[in-house]
């Protein structure tokens, strides 16, 4: 438990660690010492990263690998109850990272899914890393598509590739990235495999000024399409900075109470969102 972690003072942007200092005991390759794990305290941060994924995809393992924390790795339902937060610094830039509860969906009404959805929608993280299980990709991709409908600032961590290899499963990472329109990085977080690439992808998405647009569902029912378009225009007029008005319109049509409330009280357009980004 006494692994020394670099803990810079609050409010001070940490110096990039010197080689070998921060990462002596970690599983990352030496060149990844651009990474400094900041444990619970991100200090001053420039970017917010949300970690989403189905249950049992290794989200918390990725979280711990990035922050140096050793929290709550275990396999039972609802382990990450609300959300865990931590920090790391990469290339001298501070990141705050939020570990969301594991969910299959952002649409069913369960408390876990509400937490995950609210962080993505109202917190507007700079990057959402969706951790997927390479051995059960088909089961994991619906969540990726749902997140892609909310934001284009997404990195897919194709985790457990070591296990997939053992089962004779190879995933065409480049093809998947092309289809999804966002970076896909193969990882085996337990062994640190792929983490340097994951960090580079996170940095790239966090700093781009031109993220891919949210995925747009095409509705083949003209009546539904008209209703979505009309409502989306009204949502856009009320919340001009919102990138995913069609998605919000569709939720309103479904009678989603959380979204209805957010439209009514205006929190949908709130940049300084209550969930992420507020307290430092």
């Amino acid at each position, binding site marked *: 438990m006494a692994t020394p972690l670099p803990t810079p003072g609050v409010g001070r942007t940490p110096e990039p660690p010197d080689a070998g200092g921060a990462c002596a005991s970690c599983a990352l390759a030496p060149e990844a010492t651009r990474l400094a794990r900041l444990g619970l305290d991100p200090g001053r941060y420039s970017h917010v990263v949300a970690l989403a994924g189905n249950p049992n995809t290794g989200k918390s393992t990725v979280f711990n690998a990035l922050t140096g924390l050793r929290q709550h790795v275990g396999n039972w339902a609802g382990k990450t109850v609300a959300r865990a937060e931590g920090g790391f610094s990469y290339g001298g830039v501070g990141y705050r990272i939020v570990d969301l509860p594991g969910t299959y*969906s952002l*649409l*069913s*009404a369960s408390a876990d899914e509400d937490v995950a959805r609210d962080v993505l929608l109202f917190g507007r993280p700079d990057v959402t890393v969706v951790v997927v299980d390479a051995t*059960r990709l088909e*089961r994991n991709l619906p969540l990726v598509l749902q997140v892609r409908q909310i934001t284009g600032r997404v990195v897919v961590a194709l985790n457990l590739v070591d296990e997939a290899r053992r089962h004779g499963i190879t995933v065409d990472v480049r093809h998947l990235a092309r289809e999804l329109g966002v970076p896909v990085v193969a990882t085996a977080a337990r062994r640190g495999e792929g983490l340097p690439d994951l960090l580079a992808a996170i940095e790239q998405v966090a700093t781009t000024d031109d993220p891919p647009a949210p995925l747009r569902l095409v509705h083949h029912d003209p009546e539904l399409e008209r209703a979505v378009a009309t409502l989306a225009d009204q949502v856009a007029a009320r919340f001009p900075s919102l990138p995913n008005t069609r998605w919000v319109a569709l939720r309103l049509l479904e009678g989603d109470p959380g979204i209805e409330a957010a439209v009514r009280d205006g929190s949908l357009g709130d940049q300084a969102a209550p969930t992420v980004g507020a307290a430092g």
Partner: protein
Amino acid sequence: MTLDELPRGDRAVVTALDIRGGARRRLMDLGLLPGSAVHAEMTSPLGDPTAYEIRGALVVLRREQARAVHVEPEGR
């Protein structure tokens, strides 16, 4: 035929979901969509609920949930 009638050990493909709202959403989130392959794996001693293999995971459904799922049994 509906999923609750699928004999244990048999396979089928989902053709339609005869249910609306949140319950439909939930089934879809669990991987039950038109075109999904389903395998009736095991039944509890009283015949309800039943565990189905769907897209690489075991999903347990009550009879009234399974009754909403229309399936086409696979060639026998």
